[in-house]
């Protein structure tokens, strides 16, 4: 079997646990992968201490981008906003457990870029957020 399509990825792609949209929410951000048009929206709720109490992702894209989003959103519930600001590329790759070339890497990192742009209150999800 190919690394890239480990069971866990296909599973999270087909049956995501955290797909959806919170309403009301405290933080919401959405952006595209300009290379392929993949789209991710993330909504978060936080408590007064800055801890993430619930999170969802929505959008469309390939198995890698959607599975990463699902894994990422699952993993940040209970974390603080400050912690999320420090998540990096390796965090995602460790969760996925695969190696990626530069193009697919962008798929994998889209949800993290969107998340970080959201918590930083930025206008767009730029590559520099996950370098």
């Amino acid at each position, binding site marked *: 079997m*190919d690394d*890239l*399509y480990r069971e866990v990825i*296909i599973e999270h792609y*087909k049956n995501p646990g955290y797909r959806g949209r919170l309403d009301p929410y405290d933080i919401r951000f959405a952006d595209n992968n300009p*290379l*392929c*048009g*993949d*789209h991710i929206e993330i909504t978060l709720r936080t408590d007064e201490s800055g801890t993430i109490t619930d999170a969802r992702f929505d959008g*469309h*894209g*390939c*198995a*890698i*981008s*959607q599975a990463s989003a699902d894994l990422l959103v699952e993993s940040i519930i209970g974390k603080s906003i400050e912690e999320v600001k420090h998540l990096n590329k390796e965090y995602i790759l460790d969760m996925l457990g695969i190696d990626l070339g530069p193009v*697919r890497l962008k*798929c994998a990192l889209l949800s993290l870029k969107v998340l970080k742009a959201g918590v930083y209150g930025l206008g767009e999800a730029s590559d520099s957020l996950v370098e």
Partner: protein
Amino acid sequence: MCTCLLIDILTMLNINEIRNDFPIFQREVKPGVPLVYLDSTATSQKPLAVIEAMNDFYRRSNANIHRGVHTLAEEATELYEQSRVRIARFINASAAHQIIYTRNTTESINLVAYSWGRAHLKAGDLVILTEMEHHSNLVPWHILQAERGIELEFIPVTDDGLLDLEAYKTLLARSPKLVSFAHMSNVLGTINPAAEIIRLAHAAGAVTVVDAAQSVPHFKVDVQALEADFLAFSAHKMCGPTGIGVLYGKTALLESMPPFLGGGDMIKEVKLRSFRPNSLPYKFEAGTPAIAEAVGFGAAVDYLTSVGMDAIAAHEHEITEYALERLEEVPGVRVFGPSAQHKGGVTAFTLDGVHPHDVAQILDRDGVAVRAGHHCAQPLHEKFGIPASSRASFYLYNTKAEIDLLVNGIYKVKEMFG
């Protein structure tokens, strides 16, 4: 495999010989997996003749051009200008000075937008594009729209991927200044009736730009027969190197245009506070150009001519017909664009329940290289209600056996995501 070979001989291409001309086909994608390259719409592979022409240039004749009198400079200038003559002949331009070297199709269209556009278009002026344009023929006009307040209208695309010419005629009644359109779509494969579109545009008093990025590489294009005012294409999609493209223009139009980029070579005289522009084609070629690339481009044009553009078109047509037949038999596959009759060698498709990136990635395991994404045509994808597609595209070196490998691969994808 046997039958394919036979048919290819009938269409005049000796496919084995042609494949031998391209060194990359000796490579394996990974051990034991040969390359099945179905991505020529993005960029073509290069024959040895082109690689060697550039290699030779750097090993024997490399020098800067035009301003040198030493032997190498003379040789380099001659090679650079000879390529221009050969490219002019390839598209039947009446004079070599109508061939402006640019980086690619994109820069060619931007040159028209910046130089001709800013000299001739003002607020409220109408520019007609189509719904099937590549971003290269959209964004330069978006920029001009934001800057100048020009108006943009789009010839609609029908459900079967053709331009709606009746709607075009209605738009023409609004006296557009410019009509700019793709000769062949890089997603649908549609070959648009360029001569007719241009004839109607001229009757309405509009200037025309032909985005020929996908046509000049794949079939005989005659700029004089088309009566094209401007026509743009890229070397890298027609067996040539990256880093060089062409803007063809009618002499009177090019002469009336202000320069675009300023610098060495494009001037006749420079004072501290002013300059006089050079004559064509140099007026539009500022700074040291892509010299080795021009040499490679000339070799590419020679190569294509030696194979024969009609034979290439016939071969691609046959492959495309076969590909459509095979793809349409796969449950869940939806192919976009018209029937083979109106189509060049491009098949964009979706597979139910699987994202195009995953299709391409899984095909890649078997060495099958297809592209996945919006192919720089987001508005067209939006029109068809899809964010992305997979695209297999064909050139002179592809075989029916490769189509079979593509289709086998798609069945594997279905299995994995089943």
